[in-house]
């Protein structure tokens, strides 16, 4: 005998079809399409007022850091933005200022003292003590050997010309002042900063 689909059976089929779709409509209703805004990343950040140290406009910047300087936390700066109070910058920044975060966090930041020995092809990590001791020793040896107290005309000149220094025009006035004070006390004269170039 041949398989016959009676009307009743056909209705069943139809019903099944309906079921699938309506099941989809109701049964598997997907998550409601809610609009969600990205979490506001500055919530709870510690804000520190600072100055951009690239160019001489001296824009005010706000440094946002994670951690509240509590004793058990190492604060970490994760966002930099213009300071709207600053009379010159009024919150705006240039592409360098806007990218300050990647300077502060740069992979090229140095983390500990290093030395490259004569002829060597590599850096070696050293302690601050070793660094200071060796540098001071170098400086003293050179100064003692080459310090000029009197020039050929018999003038008292008290200068040290065989070791020189370049100061940083991006460093603070406090650093600059202390540097100058130290340098002249040693009688150093070959001493400049970026203002020269």
């Amino acid at each position, binding site marked *: 005998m*041949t398989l016959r*689909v009676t009307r009743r059976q056909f209705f069943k089929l139809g019903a099944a079809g309906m079921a699938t779709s309506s099941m*989809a*409509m109701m049964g598997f209703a*997907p998550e409601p399409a809610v609009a969600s805004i990205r979490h506001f990343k500055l919530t709870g950040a510690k804000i520190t007022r600072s100055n951009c140290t690239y160019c001489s406009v001296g824009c005010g910047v706000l440094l946002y850091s994670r951690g509240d300087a509590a004793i058990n936390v190492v604060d970490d700066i994760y966002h930099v933005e213009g300071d709207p109070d600053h009379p010159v910058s009024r919150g705006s920044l240039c592409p360098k200022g806007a990218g300050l975060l990647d300077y502060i966090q740069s992979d090229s930041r140095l983390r500990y003292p290093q030395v490259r020995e004569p002829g060597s092809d590599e850096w070696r990590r050293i302690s601050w003590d070793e660094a200071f001791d060796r540098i001071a020793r170098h400086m003293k040896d050179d100064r003692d050997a080459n310090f000029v107290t009197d020039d050929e005309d018999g003038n008292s000149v008290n200068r040290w010309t065989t070791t020189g220094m370049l100061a940083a025009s991006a460093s603070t006035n406090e650093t600059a002042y202390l540097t100058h004070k130290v340098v002249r006390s040693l009688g150093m004269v070959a001493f400049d900063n970026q203002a020269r170039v």
Partner: protein
Amino acid sequence: MSLAKTDPPLQRYSVWNRLNHWLVAISFVLLVLSGLPFFHPFFWSLTALFGGPTMTRILHPYIGLFMTLMFLVMAVAFFKESLIKRRDLQWLRQIRDVLANRDERLPPVGKNNAGQKLVYWLMLGCIVLLLVTGLLIWQPYFAGAVPITLRRLASLAHAFVAFLAILTLIIHVYSGIWVKGSFQAMVRGRVSWAWARHHHGLWYEEEREKARQQRAIRRRHDTPTNRQESP
């Protein structure tokens, strides 16, 4: 008692034909279910059937590729019997008789009637188009490289052709249910001589002719004792 014993005598579709057809059928249904959500949000929740929206987006094209492959195989197998003949046009002219079941008025039909042939060609056309347009908008593989206007055109075409294909499918499925015995034919591959004579007169004649010749051959080699029953 197993169905096999009572199976109708006349072979209409080979095992491979049937397997092939049902693979196409299943993947086509899956494609419809996974495609509709992108066609209209009303069907969005169907994505739940495929493990979520993104999964649906990912699966749909692969199922599509699979179906296209299967279909082409089938298309080759059914090619000859799907060529449209003059008499098919006559059959189509009398489509009203077809629908009204006034079959006695219809011209005799070969293995496939004009309707089945139309389904064949429509589907062939649709699926080729769907393949091409589908590839053009396939993220993340090809879409990126396709000029935006073409991508827009493809999206439009893909949706429209899919719509056509679905309609064709509905007609196809309905006919399967409507014409008693054809569903069974595609399930078990066999039909009764009466069914064949009614729906596919010419094919019926061919089959009988074949049967006669086979019997003739057998008679030449066989002893009269173990003669078989007639069909």
